[in-house]
């Protein structure tokens, strides 16, 4: 995972995607929109970064997880899916208020509803556009 150091009031976004091209794209889109970005290539790494281990219960949250203002994740990933990642985040007392955005290349209404019902902030179709990311950025700073 790549990390950057930035000032406090710049939103920090964790982007999760197993596709290397999409990771590069989302990172660039977020940086262009003045966000600090950390990328993770799968959900397990994302959880580790956030301070949650896969089989860990809430009480074992190690408190050493990084602070993020938003998580944006691909839906279809091998191993743990974006939906399962969303579940874990929403089940965590430490992380449940962090907005989670789901991305997918497939427009499947059931999938979209499922994610929104689980507490996803938004569901965005890939490929992401600069306009999509600017909109999300705006939401984070309530502009």
């Amino acid at each position: 995972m790549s990390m950057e150091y930035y000032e406090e009031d710049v939103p920090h976004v964790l982007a999760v995607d197993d596709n290397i091209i999409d990771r590069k794209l989302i990172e660039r889109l977020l940086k262009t929109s003045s966000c600090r970005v950390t990328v993770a290539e799968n959900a397990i790494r994302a959880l580790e970064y956030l301070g949650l281990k896969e089989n860990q219960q809430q009480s074992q949250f190690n408190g050493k997880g990084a602070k993020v203002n938003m998580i944006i994740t691909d839906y279809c990933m091998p191993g743990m899916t974006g939906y399962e990642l969303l579940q874990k985040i929403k089940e965590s007392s430490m992380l449940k208020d962090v907005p989670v955005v789901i991305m997918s290349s497939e427009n499947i209404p059931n999938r979209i509803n499922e994610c929104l019902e689980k507490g996803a902030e938004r569901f965005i179709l890939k490929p992401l556009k600069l306009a999509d990311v600017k909109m999300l950025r705006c939401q984070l700073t309530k502009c």
Partner: protein
Amino acid sequence: MDQRNQMHRHIANTRKSLFDQGYLDEQFIQLEELQDNSNPNFVEEVVTLFYRDSARFLSNLDQALEKRPLDFNKLDSLMHQFKSSSTSIGAKKVKTECTHFRNYCNARNAEGCKRTFQNVKKEYTTLRKKLEAYFQMSRQVGPIETACRSR
């Protein structure tokens, strides 16, 4: 000076024809919009990543298509990833052939899969050649000119 202007025009025309002939779509323009002085080679970097990634996918698909019987779920899953990458760089014709392939996977049509996979490879190879030529030309006149967005 005049020669440079001619080069610029030639590059712009080459770029335009990639869109007009359906090799690239608006997503490629999104990539170009993310290129600036702080990231002057962004488009080419992404496309180069795409070539590397594609080599892997296409090789895996080749292997998977050799198996008997065909594992259509695996084929579909592999192609889903390749289609994702193609979509992300705006590779329009490649993307279309990927979709055809996935349709044949869903229909459990082995012949269809094999046939369309040849088309996928053909479109990929064609696009790659054209993009390599385009970037090489662009490099000859300098990086700033490639950010020109006239359609």
